[in-house]
């Protein structure tokens, strides 16, 4: 088993090395090689997953990576229920997206480079997920950040893409600092960073303050990686990358790493109610806030990006209130339907030659029937309509939020659910239904259905979006998914758990979803109320939303620019060049030359004057010596 487990991680790495080093020669087959590597990884990954389903924990230590005196960090891989879910999601979705990319990236000059990066990404992601200690998780954590940087900036000739990549990396680094601090606190308290050492001892070692500090520090990391408010700003810009990247990294896997990490650290978070409160509140706020921005956006990928933010907020509500399994559950279903949504958007872009604005689209259903159906499925899933996957997970989160005593979050969540359904169907209705907005555009662009190599992965994800939620059904009084996850991440025990009728809760959720769809139908299909009239009626709000609350502008002019200005004009040009270099260093030289100038006056040039000085020196020195010995 240890070899298999190692090879799960190594297979994509080998793919990366082949495509990365021999990319020039493997170019025609790069996609196939990469997909094969991933498929191998997926298949091999099933073995440990099966073992975990039988109730085992698979853990192997391969060598000692960092042997410090104070702490020893092994290189070990661990599959338990949490990582099994992640392992499955990551390898499966990645395989699908790799296959999809063969079609999508066809003909790109950086074809082999793209697959090399993707494989490297999956390697890092698997390390993140499977590492048996926090440091190894951090390796993966930074690794995925790096690949995200490389892939967002994949079309590096576009400055927006390069900037977006750098922005992603830098913003993530803020989170990484938090993560590092958290890890250092863990090492400080536990003398180890290995999960098996840390979690069982958490209750005896930590007090609630320490747990809160660690929790908040780790959550800062999660905020960066999972793009929670206010560190979300990189995610929308990240849409500059190729669409499969957005699908894989910025929807299905990498951005959910924060959720995974919080769920993984459940033992610590469960001891820190304040940290949990923060996690849940930030999640709820982000869910709502991002949804509002998705309402008005016109760029299909950015709508999906905001939607991702919003859904990530849901996941954080789940893990924040202490029902870790719900967060993980939503993570999984979200990977399916959001991955699918992005792939669908990619297919649209593919056939629209890179056009993104929904203003140009309409009635695409006729040209791309399969994509249209899949997008509807995915939108129903994300909108929370039973029996699609999203319904189960979202409902589980909201129900637990209410039950664990967070009614406000529940209300926010339900409102967001309404908005979610609305903006998704706004997207679907304007793009796939209605009439063509620009006559003859599709003909000019040769718009057509995506090739099979792209639709087959989409269908696979589509099916999972439909049935993936069933693991959250009550079967014989047990929810299988809950049962699986709570072995590793038990729910936080809440003192007075409230109970509500399940039917009512489901009813509210479903109503919200249907209301959202209905609203979108009224506005965008029936046009009883036009979108423009609403926009006019709420002009200030609309402007604010359409400009995404001016956050990017705020960051640019109030943080980035002053920072550079101070560095350039104050630190460099004044402090460094003038104060330290001219003032202190050259000043010392100047002083020496001044002193020398003064001393020049005793240089008369007469030999006997020098002799006077010499004698004076002799007298003084020997006189001092005489005084000393007397």
């Amino acid at each position, binding site marked *: 088993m240890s070899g298999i487990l190692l090879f799960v991680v190594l297979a994509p790495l080998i793919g990366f090395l082949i495509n990365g080093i021999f990319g020039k020669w493997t170019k025609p087959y790069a996609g196939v090689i990469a997909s094969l590597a991933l498929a191998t990884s997926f298949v091999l990954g099933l073995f440990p997953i099966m073992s975990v389903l039988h109730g085992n924990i698979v853990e192997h230590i391969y060598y000692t990576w960092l042997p*410090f005196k104070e702490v020893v960090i092994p290189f070990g891989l661990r599959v338990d229920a949490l990582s099994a879910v992640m392992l499955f999601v990551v390898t499966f979705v990645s395989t699908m997206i790799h296959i999809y990319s063969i079609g999508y990236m066809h003909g790109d000059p950086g074809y082999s480079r793209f697959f090399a990066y993707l494989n490297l990404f999956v390697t890092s992601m698997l390390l993140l997920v499977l590492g048996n200690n926090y440091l190894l998780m951090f390796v993966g954590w930074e690794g995925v950040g790096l690949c995200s940087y490389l892939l967002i900036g994949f079309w590096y000739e576009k400055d927006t893409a390069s900037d977006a990549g750098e922005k992603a990396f830098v913003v993530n680094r803020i989170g990484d600092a938090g993560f590092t601090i958290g890890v250092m606190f863990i090492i400080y308290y536990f003398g180890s960073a290995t999960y098996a050492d840390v979690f069982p001892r958490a209750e005896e070692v930590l007090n609630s303050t320490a747990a809160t500090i660690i929790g908040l520090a780790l959550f800062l990391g999660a905020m960066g990686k999972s793009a929670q408010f206010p560190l979300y700003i990189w995610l929308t810009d990240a849409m500059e990358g190729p669409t499969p990247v957005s699908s894989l990294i910025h929807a299905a896997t990498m951005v959910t790493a924060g959720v995974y990490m919080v769920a993984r650290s459940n033992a610590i978070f469960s001891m820190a109610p304040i940290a949990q409160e923060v996690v849940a509140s930030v999640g709820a706020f982000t869910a709502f806030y991002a949804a509002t921005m998705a309402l008005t956006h016109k760029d299909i990928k950015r709508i999906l990006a905001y939607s991702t933010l919003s859904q990530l907020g849901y996941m954080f509500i789940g893990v924040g209130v202490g029902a870790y399994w719900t967060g993980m559950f939503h993570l999984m279903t979200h990977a399916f339907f959001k991955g699918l949504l992005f792939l669908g958007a990619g297919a649209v872009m593919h056939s629209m030659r890179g056009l993104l604005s929904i203003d140009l689209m309409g009635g695409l259903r006729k040209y791309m029937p399969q994509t249209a159906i899949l997008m509807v499925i995915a939108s129903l899933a994300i909108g929370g309509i039973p029996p699609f996957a999203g319904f189960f997970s979202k409902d589980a989160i909201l129900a637990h939020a209410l039950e664990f005593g967070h009614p406000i979050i529940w209300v926010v969540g339900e409102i967001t659910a309404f908005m979610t359904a609305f903006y998704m169907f706004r997207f679907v209705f304007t793009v796939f239904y209605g009439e063509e907005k620009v006559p003859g555009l599709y003909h000019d662009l040769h718009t057509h259905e995506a090739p099979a190599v792209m639709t087959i992965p989409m269908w696979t994800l589509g099916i999972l979006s439909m049935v993936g939620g069933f693991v959250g059904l009550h079967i014989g009084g047990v929810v299988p998914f809950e049962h699986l996850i709570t072995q590793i991440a038990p729910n936080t025990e809440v003192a007075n758990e409230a109970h509500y009728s399940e039917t009512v809760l489901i009813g509210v959720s479903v109503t919200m979803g249907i209301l959202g769809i209905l609203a979108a139908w009224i506005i965008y299909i029936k046009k009883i109320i036009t979108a423009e009239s609403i926009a006019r009626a709420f002009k200030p709000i609309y402007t604010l939303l359409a400009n995404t609350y001016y956050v990017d502008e705020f960051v640019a002019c109030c943080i980035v620019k002053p920072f550079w200005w101070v560095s350039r004009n104050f630190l460099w040009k004044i402090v460094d060049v003038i104060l330290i270099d001219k003032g202190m260093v050259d000043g010392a030289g100047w002083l020496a030359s001044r002193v020398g100038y003064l001393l020049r006056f005793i240089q008369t040039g007469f030999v006997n004057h020098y002799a006077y000085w010499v004698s004076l020196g002799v007298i003084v020195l020997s006189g001092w010596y005489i005084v000393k010995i007397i």
Partner: protein
Amino acid sequence: MNQLHFPILSLITFIPLMGAFFVALINEKNENLIKWFTFIILVIDFIVSLPLFFYFDPTTYHMQFVERVPWIKSLGFEYHVGVDGISLFLVLLTTFLTPLAQLSTWSAIDKKVKLFNIVILLMQTGMLGVFISIDMFLFYVFWEVQLIPMYLMIGIWGGPNRVFATMKFFLYTFAGSVFMMIAIMALYFLNHHFTGTYTSDMVKLMATPLPAHLQMWLFLAFFIAFAIKVPMWPFHTWLPWAHVEAPTAGSVILAGILLKMGTYGFLRFNLPMFPDMTHAFALLVIILSIIGIFYGAFVAMVQPDIKKLVAYSSVSHLGYSMLGMFALTQVGLEGSILQMLNHGISTGALFLIVGIIYERRHTRLISEYGGLASLIPVFSVFFMIFTLSSIAVPGTNGFVGEFMILLGAFLAKPIYGIIVAFGGLFSAIYMLTMYKRVVFLKVTNPKNLELKDMNKREWAYMLPLLLFVFWIGLYPNTFLSKMRVSVEHLLQQTNRSVKVIDKTQEAQLIKTVVVKKG
């Protein structure tokens, strides 16, 4: 102890000197022979230094491969050399990096080739001498000896502003050396006062530290000397000048090895010899280091010149090293030493990288480049990897060192770790912004279209560095295990406190000594 029963250290140190002698005999016109000969000498030197690694005994902190010959008997000076876990890797780094640096000059240096190669060889001797000396005066001699070749290298083969830069470099570091000289002599005589023997053996001096109240001025004098060399904020302003004007090989050696002499000096003198003051001044040094880390990053960010940027990044990186050292924890100290190696490798490689494009385009301004990725992809890949190593991405060497230092600082006092954890953010900003402007984006400057990708010689000197980036990143145990015991011992020495001899007793002591002399 010399497990090889063979003067290996002297051999390593003086092979280049002999080589310089022979190079001097070659006809100046025969440049190829000179280059090959120098390169082979340096490679032989590296190969000869390998047994140090393999025969090194990691279970003892005592000096190993020791050679000991009286030098000036009546004064207690000796030719006394040896390595322990602290200096071992610095010696190896030197023998490893110099051939690569020399290889980079084959086509970059086109005037006075012979002299240049002689200078490199002499510098090699000087640098190795510093790292192997156990005798304090020998250390000082080598310390000064290596200054002159560097002075020549910047002064003769430097850029347009080289004269100013050399003067600044030389005077600045020499000012530091003067402080060191005074401190060394004071240490020598004070040690005699308290122990009754004249010795300049650093191991003995470490074993019997002075009373606490006498340590302060000595500590400060050594501090200034080494802080200038490191360089710590605010003693760093010679560094950008020297780097910008120096030829590529000069920058590589300067950043890779010469700066390490400063940090090494701290480990050899300040920490073990003045333990009380080390604790007393630790806070000051740590604050300066933290300022250096952030300040270096901020200033690096806005530099228009790639080399200047990398130079300021050195200030930042060595700030980490100093921080780890004065955190006075095992992991911090080991991290500090590892960071020295990492900095030598990554920053050395970055200077080589800059040298590659400088050689082709004769400019180092960031704004002159752009879009190199599509023109010279292999170069861009190498550049990327060393950039990542410099910003400490896990899996590369930079991460291991920086994390160890962070952890060490954190264990000393959590607040240090927390503050410095955000340093990585800024290193990412300046390196990636620079990388983006140079390598990404569109090709805007038509002159760049002519660029040629790396040739075989350039491959040859980048690959070994690449190997070490990942070796240290993935399996640092090779390096950490050898320094463990020495660092433990150093830490013990630093953590002992010296009994304070009361004032009257000491005054009496001085008086008797003076009378005896009279």
